[in-house]
Structures are given as structure tokens and as C-alpha cells.
């Protein structure tokens, strides 16, 4: 802001925001009031002593589109069209909503006023900071003419309400999301309308502040509704630091597995299949190891003995291994050891069998590991991240990795492998929707009563 445009400035400790605003209103001033406290800034444009506009944060428009969609007031396709306006000031977006009859003009004005009250209720609590009043005119698409006394009263009421809501332990930037495990009937919980709306908007991205604006209710009201939903186990608070760490760890698992997959073996088809198996085993064990650190059930229990973690993993994923063993008997040589799949016997199969028989075994291992890996990934993503933004980002990455594995499998099949691509379990990590074992797979049916496995076991004993 340029020095010459400044009419008034001072510290909030000397002259509070409330007094400053009233003084400017009484003298019918026109200009911009900028209040800063730490990292936070509020810019209000006054016209002849009345509040005309608020300078906005850029992210609010994208949030508003999503909230209107989540509340069922526009469908996904319409929302997608509006998203091109996400970087526009919210006044422009609201105007577009009015033009497309998504909201009424009265609601638009109500929303513009609400934003000002919301911002002011926050700024009124600032004890320390600085204010400046400039002659500069803020650009505002839809100028309002709000009475300062009315806005101040409403802002003070919301600020008082917030003080009461502090005991919830939530703040304006708290983000919550739906609990994936909840399988009860929400209608039977006797939720109030606002609580249902807050539940609808708890998508893991919207803050308390944003939800309040979306529903045009006070932030305190949102925080109290959120606290109730937390108590009922319908939502959970998103811990961004934990999610970033968790995502980084999952990415490390994929990086390591991809590195394993990219190794170029010397030798024939058996060796190439072995590389594929090692990559699948690395990924499966990487995911298990990861889940041992970040499983929801293990969080917040302090340092745990590795044996306890291993027991948890074996209890969680043992049944899946059992299913794989029932379908691909070669997996009877695989067991859980300290929470990891011990594939040593499989990796040493080439010391016992050769040729076509070895390749058949290897293909069974590829099929089984691929299925198991997908199931484990589905379980851990649902448990740890759920339907959050980082969860979706990871799933996108996971699909790319699966696609790369699919290509590698197809390449191996092209090199003389026995099966065809359609016989393998495919698709994304939502594998539970698929018929997991593809009953039509002749190789799998054969495996059920496979005498060769007994033969391998016999030889191993010798």
C-alpha cells in the first residue's frame, strides 16, 4: 500500500477494531481498512461509512462449488462446468450461480454479508496487530451497503458463540471426514438438520470456517455439530501431518517395488517371471510393513513390541492368505513370519523344479500375489486414509503401478507364458467388487487339486 494514500493507522492495542470501524462509519469515510495480526489479514472496503466489500481469500470459490454440490443443489456435471471459475472472486461466482438459478439473488446478498460478518468475528478477537486506513478503492463486483453497527453486532455475537464452542477442542481450520467403517443407519441417530448438513460437508477437505459459510450458520454451530458427529463415530478429524507422512511412506513402498520391477534379469522367461514375483512380494511386504506402523487400531498406543504388531498383521491378513492358499496351493509354502510374507520357498522353487512346471508354478504365484497385494492395499487405504484427498491421490498412483504390472505380465505372457491376460485377476484396488478368483480360470481350477505341490513339498522334505 502506498504511503501517501494512508489516512489513519495505529495498533489494535491502542485502538481496537470495533472502535476504529465505528469511528470511520460515523465520519462517513470511503477507503480500505486493512487489519493485520500475525499472518492474518483482513481488508474491508468502506463506502461513505458503510461496508461495501471484503477482500477475499482465493480458495473460497472452489470450496463453495463443492459445498453446493455436496448439498445436492447441483449435480456433478454442472459443478464441473463451474470449476473453471474456481479462481474467480466468490462474488463473481455467486453472480453466476444467480444467473444459472442455482441460488436466488437474496441468497447471494446473504452470502456476501455472511462472509464479512464471519471475517470480522474472527478479527474482533485479535488482541495485537496493526490497522491502516487508505483512500485506495478496492475493486468489488457487487458492492454492498451494510450498516457497520448491524455487522458489528452480528460479528460480536458470533465471536461470543465461538468462545463457548472452544471446549470442543476444534478450531476454524479443523477438517473432518466421514468414517469409512460406519455401516449403521444414519437416519436412526436422530440428527438435527444442521448436523446432517455438516455430515454431508465433512469430506476431508472443507474447514469448519468453509462449512459455516456453505451452510450460512456460525462457525461455533458447525464446531458443536462436528463434535456431536465425532462422538457418534460418524466422522473423524483429519490429521494432515500424519497423512503427509503416511502418503510419503506409501510412495516409498511403490518406489521400491517399481525399482524391483524394473530390474532386467540375465536369462530366460523363468528369470523374468522371478523378477515380477519379487516385485509383487516386495510390494506386498512393503504394504504390510507400512500398515504395521500406521494402522488405525495401532495408532495412539505408544511404542508397541514388534511381536504385537506382527500378531495384529497376521490376524488381519491371515484369512486373506488362507483364501489364496485354498485357491493356489503353491502358497502353502508361504507363511507369515514376523508380520511379513515369507516367500523364500517360492523364490527357491527353481532348485526343485524346472521347465514348464516351474513356469506354471511361477504364474500361479504371480496370480496369487497380485490378488493378495490388491486386497491388502484396498484394506489399508480404507483403514488409514479413507476417502480423503491424499487417499484418492494415492489410489491414482496405485492404479498406475498396477497398470505397469499388468503390462509386465502381458509382456511375459507374450514371451511364451501359459495364460492370457483375461485369466488374471485385474482392475484397481477396489478388487473386492470383482470375482476374486475368476472361476473360469482353468489354471486355477487345476491348481485346487494340484499334485505337483505335494510333489514339491515331498522333494523339499527329502
Amino acid at each position, binding site marked *: 500500500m502506498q504511503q501517501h494514500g494512508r489516512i489513519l493507522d495505529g495498533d489494535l492495542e491502542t485502538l481496537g477494531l470495533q472502535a476504529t470501524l465505528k469511528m470511520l462509519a460515523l465520519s462517513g469515510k470511503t477507503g480500505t481498512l486493512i487489519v493485520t495480526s500475525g499472518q492474518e489479514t483482513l481488508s474491508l472496503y468502506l463506502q461513505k461509512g458503510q461496508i461495501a466489500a471484503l477482500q477475499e481469500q482465493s480458495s473460497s470459490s472452489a470450496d463453495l462449488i463443492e459445498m453446493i454440490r455436496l448439498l445436492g443443489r447441483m449435480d456433478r456435471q454442472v459443478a464441473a462446468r463451474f470449476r473453471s471459475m474456481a479462481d474467480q472472486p466468490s462474488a463473481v461466482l455467486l453472480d453466476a450461480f444467480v444467473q444459472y438459478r442455482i441460488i436466488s439473488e437474496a441468497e447471494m446478498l446473504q452470502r456476501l454479508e455472511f462472509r464479512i460478518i464471519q471475517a470480522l468475528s474472527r478479527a474482533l478477537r485479535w488482541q495485537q496487530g496493526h490497522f491502516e486506513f487508505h483512500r485506495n478503492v478496492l475493486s468489488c463486483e457487487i458492492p454492498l451497503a451494510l450498516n457497520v453497527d448491524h455487522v458489528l453486532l452480528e460479528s460480536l455475537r458470533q465471536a461470543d458463540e465461538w468462545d463457548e464452542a472452544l471446549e470442543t477442542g476444534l478450531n476454524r481450520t479443523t477438517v473432518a471426514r466421514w468414517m469409512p467403517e460406519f455401516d449403521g443407519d444414519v437416519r436412526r441417530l436422530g440428527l438435527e438438520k444442521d448436523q446432517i448438513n455438516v455430515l454431508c460437508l465433512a469430506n476431508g477437505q472443507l474447514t469448519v470456517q468453509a462449512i459455516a459459510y456453505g451452510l450460512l450458520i456460525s462457525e461455533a454451530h458447525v464446531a458443536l455439530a462436528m463434535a456431536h458427529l465425532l462422538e457418534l463415530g460418524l466422522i473423524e478429524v483429519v490429521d494432515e501431518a500424519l497423512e503427509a507422512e503416511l502418503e*510419503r511412506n506409501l*510412495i*516409498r513402498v*511403490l*518406489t*521400491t517395488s*517399481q*525399482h524391483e*520391477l*524394473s*530390474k*532386467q534379469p540375465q536369462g530366460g522367461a523363468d528369470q523374468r517371471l522371478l523378477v515380477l514375483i519379487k516385485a509383487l512380494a516386495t510390494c506386498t511386504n512393503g504394504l504390510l510393513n507400512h500398515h504395521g506402523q500406521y494402522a488405525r487400531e495401532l495408532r495412539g498406543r505408544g511404542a508397541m513390541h514388534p511381536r504385537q504388531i506382527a500378531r495384529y498383521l497376521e490376524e488381519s491378513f491371515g484369512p486373506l492368505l488362507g483364501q489364496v492358499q485354498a485357491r493356489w496351493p503353491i502358497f502353502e509354502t508361504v507363511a507369515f513370519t514376523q508380520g511379513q510374507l515369507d516367500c523364500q520357498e517360492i523364490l527357491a522353487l527353481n532348485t526343485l523344479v524346472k521347465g514348464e512346471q516351474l513356469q506354471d508354478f511361477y504364474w500361479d504365484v504371480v496370480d496369487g500375489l497380485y490378488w493378495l497385494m490388491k486386497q491388502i492395499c484396498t484394506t489399508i487405504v480404507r483403514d488409514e486414509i479413507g476417502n480423503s484427498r491424499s487417499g484418492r*491421490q494415492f489410489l*491414482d*498412483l496405485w492404479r*498406475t*503401478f498396477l*497398470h*505397469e504390472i499388468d503390462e509386465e505380465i502381458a509382456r511375459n505372457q507374450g514371451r511364451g507364458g501359459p495364460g492370457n491376460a483375461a485369466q488374471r485377476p485385474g482392475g484397481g484396488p477396489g478388487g473386492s467388487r470383482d470375482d476374486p478368483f475368476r472361476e473360469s480360470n482353468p489354471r486355477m481350477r487345476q491348481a485346487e487339486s494340484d499334485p505337483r505341490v505335494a510333489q514339491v513339498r515331498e522333494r523339499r522334505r527329502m
Partner: protein
Amino acid sequence: MNDPVVLVVDDSPTVRKIVQLTLQREHMRVITASDGLSALAAVADEEPDLILLDIMLPRMDGYNICRIIRDKMEFRHIPVIMLSGKDGLFDKVRGRLAGSSEYLTKPFDSVELVQSVKKHLANAPVRERRRDSERNISRLRRRG
């Protein structure tokens, strides 16, 4: 739109996606290429601020790409970080001789990757000036 542009050259879609996700979060614009020739085309079209280059690539390997980039006056200022699964001393020396700025081995840690990329991008103002002076020199040469 002043975000630095990073070109990621790797034949693995997983690696491309991981790097893209990691660097986009750091406010970098990421463009990708899956083989040597498309990488060179992307360098010419987009003139990225930094290149992350795999060694084993279809159509042309990373050493050759790096050499070609270093031979071109207009692109030689671009830092090239080799990102390879080969971790032998010989490979690292070969990468250095080809003109790479740094050599990272796979599997890489995303934090380490971001640190390296930022370190090389931090030289951007110096690089900008160098780029301008190189352009001026070549313009003068053409006139002369």
C-alpha cells in the same frame, strides 16, 4: 504462472506419476516424457528449468540425451539430475562425464528428491543471467 517447470524423463509411468505428485505439491509444473526422443522434443518445446532423467530409456539412453543437451548452447544451462536404478561408481562417473548436475539412485526418497531439485532450482537467478548472457553472446556472434 512463475512456477518452475521440471521435465521428468522415465519409461516407468509409476515413477513419472510419483515424481509428478511429489513436485506438484512443491508448486512446480511437471511435464513428462517416456523415451529419449520425446524428452528432447520436450526440452526444445518447453525449455524446462530442470530435467530429471532416467538412464535406461527406449530409443535413446539418458547419457546421450544429457550429452545432446549439454552440446546445445541454448539448453546447456538446464540442470540435469540423473535418476537411475544403476548405483555403481562407473555409472555415476559416466553420468557426470555426460554432464549431469547430480546423480540420484532409485529407489529414491521423495524428501531427498525435493531437496535436490530445490537446490538446483535455487540457482535460477544465476542461471537466468547466464542464459541471457549466452543469448547475447550468440547474437553477437551471429552479427559478427
